[in-house]
C-alpha cells in the first residue's frame, strides 16, 4: 500500500502472493473488462475452496468452477450473457455434480449495495428492492430495517430491505491503463470496480498498458482507482478476452456463443481447459495461440475523446 512504491508484478506473482486457498475473491467488470486472465491464472495455480463474488457470473466463473477452485458463489446473474447457459454451474447447482456449490443469490443492486457497504465500512446498506420477493427466504443475508423517520404524508415509518457489506480478501479488476503506483484509469462501462476495490483487503489491478505518470496526471478525474487502494499492478494485454476493452479490442461474441456447447459437455469443457489454460504457461501464450489473424478480427478503429483543459497557473 506504499504510494510511491513500484507495484508492478507479473500475474503469476500477484496471484501467488494475494490469492490463497479459502479466500473470498471478487472479480468485477460488468460485461466490459472482465478479469479473465486472472481467473485463468488462479486455475493454473490450483487454488481451492474459494468464495467467488461476482455480479454477473459468466464464462470465467464457469471455468473456475470446472477447475474445482470454487466452493461458494455470491452473484446476481448466473448466465452466459444473453448467449446461453453455463454448463458447469448448472451441473453443480442442479445436481451437485461433481460436488455441491453453495450459492448466495442477490439482485444486481443488492450486489452493488454490498460493495458500497463494504467499501464504506457500513454495517448494512438499504435499498428499495426485495419487497415481496422469495429471495430473502433463501438468502438470510437480506434483512429489513425500520426507518427512524415518519413515513411520507405522516404515515407510519417505512420498512426497507438492507444487505450486509462484502469485504473480499482480494478484489481483481481489469482496466485500460495505470501508472506504476497503481493509479488506474477506466473508461467506457465502469461498473462497480471502484467500490469492489475499496471493499477489499487487497486489490490487484490488471491493465492493458502501463503508462507514464504524466499520462495519468494529465486527467486526474479519469483515475477511478487511486494508488492508495491498490496493492499490485499487472500488465496483461488482452487479459479481458473474451470480453472487451473499450478502445483496445472488441468482444469475442463467437466465443460467448460457443460456450454453451463447450460447457454442456464435461469432457469438452475439460479439454478446453487443458488446451487453453493448463496448456498455456501464461496469458501471453494464450494470446499468441489465438493468433494474429484472430486478434485482427477484434481490432477497433480510433475514436478519441476531445481533450479538456485543466488549466495552469501562470
Amino acid at each position, binding site marked *: 500500500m506504499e504510494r510511491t512504491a513500484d507495484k508492478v508484478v507479473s500475474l503469476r506473482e500477484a496471484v501467488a502472493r494475494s490469492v490463497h486457498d479459502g479466500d473470498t475473491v471478487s472479480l468485477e467488470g*460488468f*460485461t*466490459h473488462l472482465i478479469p479473465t486472465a486472472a481467473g485463468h491464472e488462479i486455475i493454473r495455480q490450483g487454488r481451492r475452496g474459494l468464495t467467488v463474488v461476482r*455480479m*454477473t457470473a459468466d464464462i470465467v466463473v464457469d471455468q473456475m468452477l470446472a477447475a474445482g477452485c470454487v466452493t461458494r458463489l455470491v*452473484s*446476481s*446473474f*448466473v*448466465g452466459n*450473457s*444473453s448467449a446461453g447457459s453455463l454448463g458447469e*454451474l*448448472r451441473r453443480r*447447482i*442442479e*445436481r*451437485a455434480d461433481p460436488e455441491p456449490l453453495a450459492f448466495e*443469490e*442477490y*439482485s*444486481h*443492486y*443488492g450486489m*452493488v449495495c454490498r460493495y*458500497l457497504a463494504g467499501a464504506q465500512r457500513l454495517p448494512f446498506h438499504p*435499498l*428499495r*428492492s*426485495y*419487497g*415481496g*420477493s*422469495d*429471495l430473502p427466504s*433463501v438468502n438470510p443475508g437480506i434483512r*429489513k430495517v425500520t426507518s427512524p423517520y415518519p413515513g411520507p404524508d405522516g404515515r407510519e415509518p*417505512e*420498512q*426497507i*430491505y438492507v444487505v450486509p457489506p462484502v469485504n473480499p480478501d482480494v478484489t481483481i479488476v481489469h482496466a485500460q491503463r495505470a501508472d506504476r503506483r497503481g493509479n488506474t484509469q477506466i473508461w*467506457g*462501462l*465502469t*461498473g*462497480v470496480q*471502484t*467500490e469492489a476495490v475499496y471493499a477489499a483487503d487487497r486489490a490487484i489491478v490488471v491493465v492493458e498498458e502501463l503508462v507514464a505518470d504524466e499520462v495519468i496526471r494529465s486527467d486526474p478525474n479519469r483515475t477511478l482507482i487511486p494508488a492508495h487502494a491498490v496493492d499490485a499492478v499487472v500488465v496483461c494485454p488482452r487479459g479481458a478476452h473474451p470480453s*472487451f476493452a*473499450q478502445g483496445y479490442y*472488441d*468482444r469475442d*461474441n463467437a466465443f460467448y456463443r460457443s460456450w454453451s456447447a463447450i460447457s454442456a459437455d464435461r469432457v469438452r469443457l475439460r479439454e478446453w481447459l487443458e488446451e487453453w489454460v493448463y496448456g498455456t504457461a501464461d496469458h501471453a501464450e494464450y494470446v499468441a495461440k489465438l493468433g494474429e489473424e484472430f486478434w485482427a478480427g477484434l481490432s*477497433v478503429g480510433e*475514436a478519441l475523446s476531445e481533450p479538456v483543459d485543466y488549466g495552469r497557473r501562470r
Partner: protein
Amino acid sequence: MSGQELTRAGGAGAPVTSSELLSVVASRELAGRRTVFAGIGLPTLAAELSRLTVAPAIEVVYESGVCGAHPSHLPETIADAVLITGAEAVVSMPTLFGSVLQGGHIDVGFLGAAQIDRWGNLNTSVIGDWDRPAVRLPGSGGAVEVMANAREVFVVMRRHTPRSFAGVLDFCTTPGPERALADGIRPLGVGVTRVVTELGVLAREGVGDELRLVAVHPGVTAEQVRAATGWDLETAGAVATTAPPTAAELLLLRDEVDPGRVYLR
C-alpha cells in the same frame, strides 16, 4: 404459431414474423414515454422503432450504464462497445441503479421471464425447488430493481404456454407491487401493465388488478389464449384484434432498426 402464419403487412413485402409483430406491438405502447430501461433484443427494437414513430423523444437507458446511446451498429449486448462510443453519458453501477433507476427516472422498464403469474410477478431463478432446482435460470440481474422502481413494466414473452403463464410460480424472483405491499414495502410504480406474447396482449391497469386479455393477434382466438394460460384468464370487455404492422412500421423496422436481422430472426 409461426410468424409465417401471420397476415402480410398492408399486403406488401415479406410475411410478418412473430418477432416483428411483437416489436411493433410493443413499440406502439411506448407512445409518449420518455425513458425506457431495456435489455437487448425485442425491447431495444421496440424502443428504437418507437423513436421513429410514436415517441421521438424517448431515451433508452441500458443496465450497463449507458444513457442516450447513438450506436453505429445494432448492439449485440447491453454492454456492446458500439453503445458506449458516441453515447451522451455512461454512468457507474451505483449511479445507474441508485440515482437513475431507484431515483425514479425510468418511465417504462422492459423485462422478460421464465414464468409470470396473474399479478405480473416474475420468476427468473429456478424451475423446481430453489435448493435443488430442475433448471437453474440466470436469476434477477436488475429485474428486481426495475420492477420496484420503474413507473410501469412491459413484459415481452415469445412463448405463451400454461407453464410460463403460471398459476403458481415455482419461485418469485421479481415481485409486483401487491406482493411488496403485503411485505410492508411501498413500491414506486404499478408493476407490469402490458404483456406482449406470440398470441396477444395482456394488460393490467394498476395495483390490485389482474392481467386481462385485451387483444389477440390476427388469426388467434381468445379461447386459444385462455387455453395457453395457466390461470383462469379473464378478458377486458371486448377483446380487440391487434392491428397488423403497417407498411411504414415494417419498413422502418427492417431497413432502419435491424437491417442485419440480428434480432428479427
